[in-house]
């Protein structure tokens, strides 16, 4: 599409109509100073081509002519697809659109309003805006062809434009046949897959999906059938096991019956043997009893005889020993009495030593108390002395008045304040010092001494003070006025007076009024305070925490104690007793006495023990003799009883041996029976009972197995009736059938997918192959303008320059790394290359609105050459305020917008 003319009115600064006409098919330079309406013109062109006439809103309101209630109106004459059109649009007020087509020499209306909007828009774009004014992505071809003011750069092109460019690029590769076959491929593919490559499901499910579902269901049925087959096998196995168990139980029962029979026979034999055993045991008991009686009698006779033989000599010996023991006891008693007498004497001697010990103790107490009394007396004297010294210091300090530390500090501060106030006042006053050659009388007119007449000697200095002025009049001379800076002298005076009063208050009562004297008083008072404090410290040390009264009491107590002992021992008054010696002698006597007592006690104990032992043995032997005499008498009586049977010892032995033989015979018979019983291994009754219980258990097991078998057989028959194997067979065959179909369908789906993918890849490669030249053309243009230093331009998937490959670098470099001017040149080169692609079918309009601002003059000249060449295929409209930069374009049509605005009406 190229444009022939454009009329605009009511558009921002273009309130009045302007008509830019007779545009060249080649390069057109529309120049004018800033603010003349170049960009508004461009904007009107964009709105005409892309925006609906009914668009309103804030964006559209903003394009209205400033300060006027005009309707923004644009009319464009253009050529597209070899046909000439005229488009008219008015926005906001009486909005409308008309599209006319030139037929012969006249334009004929072909569409109005919305239809006109759409028809025009479709010429450039398939991506209309939703609401409001169009945006870059809605511009269609113009995204590449038209660059707004200063916006050569762009980021990706919209899908419809990419398609258009790719279609333009690929058109040489496609034919009608290709398209037909592609449709067939797509159609076949879409039976299996969605646009996103997923298998179709739901109501439009592909055959693959349907077969997969059928297979899944069949597989579930197969699982059930398989379970039934397994159940059949399992139940069969269970029945088999139960039958085996039942048979085994039967066999065991049979074997057990035989065992029980044998056990019962044994049990009968056992009963008989037990009965016989009891009889034999009774016989053996009788024989044993008889034997035992005889044996006991014989043993008793023998024992009695032996006892008598032992007792008789023993009794005799005991009688002899008793006489000896009585004499022993007498001698031991005498020895004990003697030892007791010695012990009594020793204890009597010990009492005498106690008197010596008491004397020594009193001597020790006298010596100690005397020493303590002397020490105490000395300490009390010291305390009395300290008290006297304290009293003296207290009296001395009370005799004069002097400031303490705090008071003196206040006095010194008051003095300092006074001095300071005085100095400040002096500093604030103007001082006039006069030293006349001759004596004179000065009258003070202004100043502290105002009204005073002061006489001054010749050569003597006189001072006059005041503030802020001091004026003194001298007779015959005149007045002298001294001025000083204004200050608050009165305040300073008050401060001084206040300081003086404080000083007087603080020093009131002291004899001395100057600071140094007061300080001396203060120091003297501090020295007296220190001495007083020392005396008190010394007293505390001597009292050591006690009161003076306590010390006096203690002294009285000690004196009384010493006097008491001295009264008892007057000789100690003259000379202290030798306490150590007395103590030593008393102790030695006590130790000797204790040793004597100990010895006597030991001897007395030994004698006593010997006497007790002798007495005890005598008592024991006397008792022993009595017992033995009694035992001998009883034994003789017992023997007499045992011998009353009247038999001789020989006859008695004969009867005894006969009894012994009878007993042995009975024992042998009983052992034979017990041996037989032992061979039976205990009472078979328990075993019989156990076996019978076992047999009953096995019978129960067999019965249980029979019942279980019947139950399982019923289950087995039920499952068998289902014909599980046949059922599984039918399902597996159906599954096989489904699998074969599914495999074929999957194979076809995969084949179609691969076919489609390969075709798409080939198309993409083909497009890439033809897009490559675009990149090459852009790069060549860039090289012509900027030299080869920037290397190759690399286009992205959206055909926007993503980076450059500088010849000096092996890697790609971001476009942002290039200078501003170079970036302009890169985008211009790319736009021109793409514009060439888009102009393959027909000449297209390229609009550049003040876009080469950063490009230097040298490169701009080369850009001009490129544009001149491009103009052979493109209509180029350059909007600029620098017409001189494009003067080099020999074939360009220069259009002065300012002149048009001045001379054209509409």
């Amino acid at each position, binding site marked *: 599409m190229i444009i022939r003319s454009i009329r605009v009115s009511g558009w921002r600064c273009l309130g009045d109509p302007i008509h830019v006409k007779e545009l060249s098919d080649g390069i057109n330079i529309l120049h004018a100073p800033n603010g003349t309406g170049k960009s508004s013109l461009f904007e009107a062109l964009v709105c005409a081509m892309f925006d609906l006439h009914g668009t309103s809103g804030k964006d559209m309101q903003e394009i209205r002519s400033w300060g006027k209630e005009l309707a923004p109106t644009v009319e464009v004459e253009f050529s597209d697809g070899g046909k000439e059109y005229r488009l008219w649009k008015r926005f906001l007020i009486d909005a409308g659109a008309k599209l006319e087509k030139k037929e012969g020499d006249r334009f004929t209306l072909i569409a109005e309003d919305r239809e006109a909007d759409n028809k025009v828009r479709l010429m450039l774009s398939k991506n209309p805006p939703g609401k409001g004014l169009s945006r870059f992505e809605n511009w269609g071809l113009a995204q590449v062809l038209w660059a707004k003011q200063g916006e050569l750069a762009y980021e990706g092109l919209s899908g419809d434009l990419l398609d258009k460019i790719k279609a333009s690029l690929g058109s040489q*590769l*496609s*034919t*009608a*046949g*290709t398209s*037909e*076959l*592609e449709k*067939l*491929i797509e159609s*076949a593919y879409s039976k299996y897959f969605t646009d996103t490559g997923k298998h179709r499901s739901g109501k439009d499910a592909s055959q693959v999906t349907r077969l997969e579902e059928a297979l899944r269901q069949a597989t579930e049925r197969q699982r059930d059938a398989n379970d*039934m*087959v397994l159940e*059949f*096998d399992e*139940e*069969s*196995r*269970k*029945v*088999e096991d139960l*039958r085996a168990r039942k048979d085994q139980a039967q066999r065991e029962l049979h074997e057990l019956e035989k065992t029980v029979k044998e056990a019962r026979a044994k049990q009968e034999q056992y009963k008989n043997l037990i009965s016989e055993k009891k009889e034999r045991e009774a016989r053996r008991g009788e024989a044993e009893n008889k034997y035992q009686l005889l044996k006991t009698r014989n043993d008793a006779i023998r024992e009695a005889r032996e006892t008598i033989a032992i007792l008789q000599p023993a009794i005799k010996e005991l009688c002899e020993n008793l006489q000896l023991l009585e004499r022993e006891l007498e001698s031991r008693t005498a020895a004990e009495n003697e030892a007791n007498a010695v012990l009594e004497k020793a204890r009597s001697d010990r009492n005498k030593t106690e008197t010596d010990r008491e004397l020594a103790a009193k001597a020790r107490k006298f010596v100690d108390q005397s020493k303590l009394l002397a020490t105490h007396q000395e300490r009390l004297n010291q305390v009395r002395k300290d008290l006297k010294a304290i009293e003296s210091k207290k009296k001395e300090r009370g005799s004069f008045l002097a400031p303490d530390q705090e008071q003196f500090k206040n006095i010194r501060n008051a003095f300092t304040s006074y001095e300071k106030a005085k100095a400040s006042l002096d500093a604030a006053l103007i001082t006039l010092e006069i030293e006349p050659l001759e004596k004179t009388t000065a009258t003070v007119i202004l100043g502290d001494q105002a009204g005073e007449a002061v006489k001054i000697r010749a050569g003597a200095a006189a001072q006059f003070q005041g503030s802020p002025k001091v004026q003194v009049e001298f007779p015959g001379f005149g007045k002298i006025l001294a001025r000083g800076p204004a200050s608050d002298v009165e305040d300073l005076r008050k401060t001084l007076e206040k300081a003086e009063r404080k000083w007087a208050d603080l020093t009131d009562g002291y004899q001395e009024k100057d600071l140094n004297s007061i300080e001396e008083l203060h120091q003297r008072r501090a020295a007296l305070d220190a001495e007083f404090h020392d005396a008190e410290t010394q007293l505390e040390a001597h009292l050591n925490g006690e009161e003076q009264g306590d010390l006096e009491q203690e002294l009285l107590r000690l004196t009384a104690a010493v006097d008491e002992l001295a009264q008892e021992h007057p000789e100690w008054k003259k000379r202290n007793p030798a306490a150590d010696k007395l103590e030593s002698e008393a102790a030695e006597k006590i130790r000797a006495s204790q040793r004597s007592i100990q010895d006597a006690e030991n001897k007395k104990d030994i004698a006593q023990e010997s006497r007790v032992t002798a007495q005890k043995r005598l008592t024991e032997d006397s008792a022993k003799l009595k017992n033995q005499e009694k035992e001998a008498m009883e034994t003789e009586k017992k023997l007499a009883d045992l011998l009353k049977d009247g038999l001789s010892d020989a006859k008695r032995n004969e009867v005894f041996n006969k009894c012994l033989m009878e007993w042995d015979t009975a024992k042998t018979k009983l052992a034979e029976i017990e041996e037989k019983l032992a061979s039976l291994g205990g009472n078979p009754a328990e075993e019989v009972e156990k076996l019978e219980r076992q047999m009953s258990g096995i019978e129960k097991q067999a019965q249980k197995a029979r019942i279980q078998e019947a139950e*399982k*057989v019923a289950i*087995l*028959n039920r*499952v*068998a009736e289902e*014909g*599980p*194997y*046949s*059922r*599984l*067979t*039918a399902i*597996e*065959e*159906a*599954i*096989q*059938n489904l699998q*074969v179909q599914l495999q074929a369908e999957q*194979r*076809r789906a*995969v*084949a*179609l*997918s*691969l*076919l489609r*993918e*390969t*075709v798409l*890849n*080939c*198309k993409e*490669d*083909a497009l890439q192959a033809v897009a490559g030249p675009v990149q090459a053309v852009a790069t060549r243009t860039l090289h012509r303008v900027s030299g080869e230093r920037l290397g190759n331009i690399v286009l992205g998937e959206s055909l926007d320059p993503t980076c450059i490959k500088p010849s000096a670098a092996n890697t790609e470099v971001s476009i942002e790394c290039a200078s501003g001017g170079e970036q302009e040149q890169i985008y211009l080169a790319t736009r021109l290359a793409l514009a060439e692609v888009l102009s393959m079918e027909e000449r297209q309009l390229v609009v550049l609105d003040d876009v080469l601002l950063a490009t230097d003059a040298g490169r701009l000249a080369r850009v001009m050459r490129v544009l001149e060449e491009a103009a052979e295929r493109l209509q180029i409209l350059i909007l600029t305020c620098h017409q001189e930069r494009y003067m080099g374009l020999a074939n360009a049509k220069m259009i002065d917008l300012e002149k048009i605005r001045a001379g054209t009406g509409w």
Partner: protein
Amino acid sequence: MRFVHTADWQIGMKAAHIGEAGKKVRDERFDAARRVVQKAKEFEAEFMLLAGDTFEDNGIDRLHIQKTADILRDFARPVYVIPGNHDPLVPGSVWEHPAWSAAGNIKVLKEAAPVELPGGVLLPCPAKEKHSSKDPTAWMPSRVGNEIRIGLAHGSVEGVQIEEKDYLIQRDAPSARGLDYLALGHYHSFATFNNPDQPCRMAYSGSHEPTKFGERDSGGILLVEISKQDRSTKVTRYPTGRLRWETLKWELPSSGPIESLVNQVSRIEEPETVLLRIEIEGVFTTVDTRHLEHLKEIVGSRFLFAGVDDSKLRPSPQDDTWMESLPAGPIREAAQRLRQFADPSWVGERPANAIPDKASDALMELFLLLGKGAK
């Protein structure tokens, strides 16, 4: 003594690999059983021996049992049947069905114990479990008299290539067990174990109807005749099977063009009784593709079952005539690429999913779409 020896009827047989044709194959086994009975009647056989695996499984449809019993009852003379490893004598087995006792002539031999025959004795070896390595004939007592002794067993004879090696039987079982004839089941093909100059004393009758592709000498019965005088044997095989399980292997181009294969298949007689498996491999041209489609149409409609395995077919690298008919541009380029991908020896870079098989299929799809486009 004259009797029919048959085995491995495999009633209720599963034929999952042939899909829906399985039912027809199963039905045909009943017809074959009827033919067996018919033959036995024609031969005036004194009895019939069924050497195991009468049924495919104990879990088959109970109606199959009744149907089989009815067929055998029609023979009217004794039929001695032993359970095989597919239908062993276990709880819930087919042999518990009342149909057997109802048919008075059918003797299901459940114990390894001699059974009196007119003029001889039968020593049966019923299988009582699916798998076992024991010799089922081991129980047979030694020969005592001169009577005809016939063994009936189901198992694998030493050296015979059987998939299920169960119930191993010695090759010299007839002499070792003192048998005049040992009727065997388990192997689905007819087989004897005697030297050509010796009488046959042990044989597999084979299945009465073939059971699968590649099965040799199946689909028949044996008529056994034993002389009561010298106990000499005569074994004659008679066909009873009707279905043919055929496999055709075709290699392009050495076996000829697919057109020839189509012609050959078209000439197969009684295709409704034929299960046909065609395996085609080699390189194909676009012309072959059309014939291949035609072949699939024929076999799919005429035969009891037909499977065409063309997964090993590769497009001919030289066949670019049809590609010239493709519109120039991406599609023709895609076809050329796919042809490269389809060549397993091609060493160029290929997408992950473009393996030769798939590329070959894709190419074939393109070719077919081209044909549709032309129409």
